[in-house]
């Protein structure tokens, strides 16, 4: 069930880089804060080009009354990470009481945790909590470079042989199949990382005949098969063309251009912002988890909140019939 957003005021009490391109921020929060568990996230009111916007970050374990997040520097982000990286100790901003959409069940006989890149943020708290309670847990954590592995020392100390680290730049990859195969039959998988990693894990999970309810994932819509590049959208039913810069979502660019849209999750889950594709020059980089692989291959619709093109043009129909 979804919680109504409840806003609080926070002040930065700590800001430091904990891995290459990963900045840890701690906020002291005014007013009562309920306890939160691993997998929770907080929404922040960020400022992008002088306009307020809302960005969601996973909560790391933190003392009562404070919130900690780790933010990846994203070269061509939609502006959220740039703003978060600009914050220093003493700065104030608004944030919401944490909510959890990716919580541990606490009923599995064993847990497999898989993280890709900044996807470590919920997984780190889960590893700590599970280990603290003596639950059987293994962790596989992949990142592009060794320097960008966040919390690696802590996780090594915590889990020892039960944690493995994989640096893709050094040719290492998580062996998802063997990790899944060594997980107890009723075990649960918690995975957070880029969509392609998730889909790979999900297809192995399905092929092994494991129950879908024991596969739990969270996605960040900011990672696809291609880098963020500018592209163009022709809105056929409105007769307008919109340029989407590399640091803006297609949804935001459409709204900014006056195209009326409905949307909800803004993370590629609900499908409300999806539009019909009536033509394209360039490849569609589907970054959502709403469409399945067949639907994505058909390229007949796309989720505008997260999906984009690595250049080129897409011609869409938003269903406007005046």
């Amino acid at each position, binding site marked *: *069930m*979804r919680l109504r957003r409840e806003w609080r005021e926070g002040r930065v009490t700590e800001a430091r880089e904990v891995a290459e391109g990963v900045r840890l921020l701690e906020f002291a929060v005014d007013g*009562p804060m*309920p*306890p*939160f*568990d*691993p997998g929770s996230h907080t929404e922040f009111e960020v400022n992008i080009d002088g306009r307020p916007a809302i960005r969601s970050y996973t909560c790391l*374990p*933190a*003392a*009562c*009354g404070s919130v900690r997040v780790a933010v990846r520097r994203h070269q061509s982000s939609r502006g959220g990470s740039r703003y978060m990286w600009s914050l220093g100790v003493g700065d104030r901003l608004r944030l919401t009481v944490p909510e959890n*959409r*990716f919580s*541990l*069940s*606490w*009923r599995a006989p064993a847990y497999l945790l898989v993280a890709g890149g900044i996807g470590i943020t919920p997984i780190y*708290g889960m590893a*700590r*909590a599970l280990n603290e*309670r003596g639950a059987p847990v293994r962790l596989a954590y992949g990142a592009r470079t060794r320097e960008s592995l966040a919390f690696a020392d802590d996780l090594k100390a915590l889990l020892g042989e039960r944690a493995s680290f994989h640096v893709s730049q050094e040719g290492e990859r998580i062996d998802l199949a063997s990790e899944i195969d060594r997980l107890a039959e009723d075990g649960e998988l918690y995975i957070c990382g880029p969509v392609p990693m998730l889909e790979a894990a999900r297809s192995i999970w399905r092929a092994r005949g494991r*129950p*879908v*309810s*024991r596969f*739990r*994932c*969270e*996605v960040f819509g900011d990672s696809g098969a291609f880098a963020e590049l500018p592209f163009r959208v022709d809105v056929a039913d409105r007769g307008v063309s919109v340029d989407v810069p590399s640091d803006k979502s297609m949804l935001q660019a459409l709204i900014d251009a006056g195209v009326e849209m409905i949307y909800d*999750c803004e993370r590629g*889950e*609900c*499908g409300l912002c999806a539009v019909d594709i009536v033509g394209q020059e360039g490849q569609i980089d589907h970054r959502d*988890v*709403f*469409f*399945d692989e*067949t*639907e994505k291959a058909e390229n007949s619709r796309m989720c505008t909140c997260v999906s984009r093109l690595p250049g080129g043009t897409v011609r869409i129909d938003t269903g406007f019939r005046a």
Partner: protein
Amino acid sequence: MHGQTYPLNAWYAAAWDVEVKRELLARTICDKPVVLYRKQNGEAVALADACWHRLLPLSRGELHGDHVICGYHGLEFDDTGRCVYMPSQATINPSACVQTYPIAEKHRFVWIWPGDPALADPALIPDLHWNDDPQWASDGKVIQVKCDYRLVIDNLMDLTHETYVHGSSIGNRAVAEAPFSVSHDTRTATVTRWMLDIDPPPFWRAQLGRPGNVDRWQIINFEAPSTIAIDVGVAPAGSGAPEGDRSQGVNGFVLNTVTPETGKSCHYFWAFARNYKLSEQRRTHELREGVASIFREDEAILEAQQKALDDNPDHVFYNLNIDAGSMWARKLIDRMIADEQAMGIAAE
């Protein structure tokens, strides 16, 4: 959070074992709407009773195998609370799940843990073993009482009220006049009262089945937050019961566990267990019905008391010497609440 009158990190009786069936049972526990049912293998399940999508109570839907299908748009949830079907789309939103609550079955109750699931240790389930121990014959009921559950605790921790509320059955002047002693530890409080060489009230005269004066005992065992097992009985006066020999007497346990429904209402589960005439099913039935009518007298008092509290919002209780047991019980409850609120972040 503020003003919460019950701890969440505790096992509460959600239902009698027989109440949870292959159908959907709606019940509010600690202000949380919950739907209970049994899987095909007999295990009980508790899910939040609101669909992830539009919040319609899932208890209005349908049990299909081990899954619950929402009665509005057909979203289907498995016994882990995970959504496994969404209409008109090929995938399932990864956020889509409803909360599940830890459940355990023991001593004929289905217990639920409404707080942090990581802390739900079945070893913490209150001891009500008399309820299904072959050395005892027991049965009971649940009543919905429109009062703060702590008023029921107060009621049970001081049995002086038997004299005035239950004068026709179990109460007489001796209860109000006999001295008592109170002890406690970090999770329990005990009130002990012996009434020596007294004329027994009608209920106990009938249970003992012989004339003459008796030594009567009431040993009230509270286990925080809301379980009370009262060791009660009578033995012929001077037959050695106060010294530990109860062999000439009859012994019962009034088993009580009270589950907050809201701040002002509760599910009061009780049973009466006895260690004599075990094979007399008729007596089991009569005792259950007899205690039920005694408790109806309490129910009327407790609901009137809650109404008085609501009507006098600026007033608080005075306490007497007789309230020592309930004062200890409330202190232990308050400590549990304070401890869990101070614990703060589960992940830290």
